[in-house]
């Protein structure tokens, strides 16, 4: 066994070295940025107006359009540009306004559609979780994944969004979002630090705005992803009432607070402008904001709830509790991988202007990290346990995707491969650590997939960001591109470590305290009787699979061995 372990570790190290050397080559081959070609001198305005009039005259007539346009060559012309003064016809300002609106329209469409993809990830989470649990808890698990969407959405609408994004004005991709301009700040050591946003509750008043609606939808589905993570770690014994209240509070307070600090102009984002740490805390699509927040909360709640009956023996050793549908697990993983193309590329909040064309790189980085995450997990399990474990393979792709979420906007494809490969191995090691050392029962590996690899993703920005991304020339108010330690900026690594420290020290603690209060008032866990019978009937009043027959479980899983 030791020999096998040595071979695995040796092979892993060699693989990393090969990838790292590729990275070096890729880095050395990076061409210096070329100056944009000198713009041609603009024609005088009078001339432009004449050309516009000329174009209007040449535009297809009504008669031509009535005969159809099978080739698509005459649809969409100057006639489709609205003129402010119909008598004067289309003028240069009209064209400029239309160009501006087109940019915003492209970005709105992009952000909304990628948001819809992220929303669909809820289905993937439901399938993965339910498949990994026993059939007697199927309805309860599906219902948690279903109801968490509602709980989170409502809480986010009434207050969560305001806390997170209430001071996030200034995103020119979505028209400026100027109505989100109220951030509560405190002065510490002569610097102003943002703590939470204050505008946008109920999306009422001046936040009843088209741009705000787009950012609300996009941020809401991210928040819901974080909430869903917790249900996986605590399933098969979490009281539905406690789950509902816990999810509402997480969607209203815990998640939005960290979201504000990282994405809403809060103090973590200000680490660059206030104390000179790189570009401030950088988390492109949410390894920290979404996944690590969900992961550390999952750890806190599963500690409080305790392990399932039968998971551990009297001597502390653990028993495997096999799920009921591996096909649901793997199909769910594919749905999640599909949804991740909304998660990461969508986080540019646009496809036009401000460097948003990097969406291609971001999508490829996302694919590659998922790929190498799967490879890492499969090879690790195969070499060490003798079989390419299916559930761990699923966790491998998810781990790679979680880890690339924060750096996806800042790293090269080679960097993405390295990040994913490490994540794939890390998730296997972490699952074993959580189960056998911490004695925390995490049936789906949510703490490892989202918590451990969320933190790894945040860290990897500080190591592997290659300094080539340029989203409008600055990030978090600091001019330049995000650059990690291996590309010359050690201070970015410190900013990322401050974020990690905040996730472990503050967000975990806050989640723990909130859920201890819920434990005091409500009780987090179902009764022993309900747990043994399965939660479908006691908690939901309906079996997930009513036509299945009953068969006794082994005594060890009834806590009687």
């Amino acid at each position, binding site marked *: 066994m030791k020999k096998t372990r040595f071979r695995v570790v040796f092979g892993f190290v060699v693989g990393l070295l090969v990838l790292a050397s590729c990275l070096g080559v890729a880095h050395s081959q990076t061409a210096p940025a070329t100056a944009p070609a000198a713009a041609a001198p603009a024609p005088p305005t009078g001339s432009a107006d004449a050309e516009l009039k000329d174009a209007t005259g040449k535009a297809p007539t009504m008669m031509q359009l009535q005969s159809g346009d099978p080739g698509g060559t005459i649809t969409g012309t100057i006639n489709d540009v609205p003129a402010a003064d119909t008598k004067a016809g289309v003028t240069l300002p009209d064209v400029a306004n239309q160009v501006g609106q087109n940019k915003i329209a492209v970005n709105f469409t992009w952000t909304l559609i990628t948001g819809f993809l992220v929303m669909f990830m809820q289905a993937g989470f439901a399938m993965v979780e339910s498949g990994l649990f026993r059939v007697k808890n199927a309805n309860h698990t599906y219902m948690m994944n279903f109801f968490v969407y509602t709980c989170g959405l409502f809480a986010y609408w009434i207050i969560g969004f305001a806390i997170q994004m209430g001071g996030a004005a200034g995103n020119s991709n979505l028209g400026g979002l100027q109505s989100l301009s109220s951030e509560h700040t405190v002065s510490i050591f002569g610097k102003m630090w943002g703590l939470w946003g204050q505008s946008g509750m109920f999306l009422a008043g001046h936040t009843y705005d088209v741009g705000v609606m787009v950012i609300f939808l996009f941020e809401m589905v991210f928040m819901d992803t974080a909430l869903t993570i917790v249900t996986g770690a605590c399933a098969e014994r979490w009281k539905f009432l406690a789950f509902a209240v816990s999810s509402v509070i997480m969607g209203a307070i815990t998640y939005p607070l960290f979201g504000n600090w990282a994405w809403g102009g809060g103090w973590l984002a200000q680490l660059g402008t206030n104390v000179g740490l790189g570009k401030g805390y950088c988390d492109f699509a949410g390894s920290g904001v979404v996944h690590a927040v969900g992961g550390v909360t999952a750890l806190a709640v599963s500690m*409080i709830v305790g392990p399932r009956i039968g998971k551990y023996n009297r001597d502390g050793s653990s028993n495997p509790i096999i799920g009921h549908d591996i096909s649901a697990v793997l199909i769910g993983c594919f749905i999640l991988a599909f949804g991740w193309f909304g998660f990461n590329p969508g986080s540019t909040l646009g496809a036009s202007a401000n460097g948003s064309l990097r969406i291609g790189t971001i999508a490829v980085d996302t694919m590659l990290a998922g790929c190498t995450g799967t490879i890492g997990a499969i090879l690790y399990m195969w070499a060490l346990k003798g079989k390419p474990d299916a559930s761990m393979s699923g966790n491998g792709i998810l781990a790679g995707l979680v880890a690339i979420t924060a750096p996806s906007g800042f790293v090269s494809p080679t960097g993405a491969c390295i990040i994913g490969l490490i994540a794939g191995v890390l998730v296997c090691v972490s699952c074993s650590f959580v189960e056998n050392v911490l004695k925390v029962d995490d049936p789906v590996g949510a703490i490892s997939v989202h918590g451990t690899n969320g933190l790894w993703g945040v860290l990897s920005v500080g190591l592997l960001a290659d300094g080539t991304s340029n989203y409008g020339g600055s990030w978090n108010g600091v001019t330049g591109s995000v650059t990690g330690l291996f590309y010359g900026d050690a201070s970015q690594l410190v900013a990322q470590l401050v974020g990690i420290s905040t996730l472990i020290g503050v967000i975990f603690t806050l989640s723990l305290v909130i859920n201890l209060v819920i434990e005091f008032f409500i009780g987090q866990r179902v009764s022993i009787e309900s747990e043994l019978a399965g939660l479908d009937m006691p908690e939901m009043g309906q079996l997930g699979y009513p036509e299945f027959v009953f068969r006794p479980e082994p005594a060890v899983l009834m806590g009687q061995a």
Partner: protein
Amino acid sequence: MAATKSQGSYLALFWTAITVLCAGVAYFAEGFGKLVLVIGLVAVAMSLFGFLKIKPEEGETATPEGLAALKIAGIFVALGGWFVTIAGLHITPSVPGRLVFALVGIAISLVGVIGVLPVAFGKKTVGRKLTASFPAKASMEHSR
């Protein structure tokens, strides 16, 4: 116990209460906002005490016995690590110095999170709470 009508009723009250509470916060600057806020707070308190009242109906659970003092200690250690990290930002302007403070802070927090708290929540007693008083009820599996 299991899910009951009382749970549903108090959850509805809680849900309404936090909505009213948030409305009070949103319109705090206006006169009626303060009144709405107070009504929301009272309703939240009522729902919490309702939850507390029906909590014993759940019956015995398999949650391991914990150590309250150790839980508090773990929370303070976890939070203390973060303070070390933040203090480092103001103590030294050098990147290596801040890096060391951040790493030390994370290490301290990890001691609290994965060292102290699992023990506080019964890591050493897992699997010892047997369920012999309950009959081995049937579970469901596929009828192949």
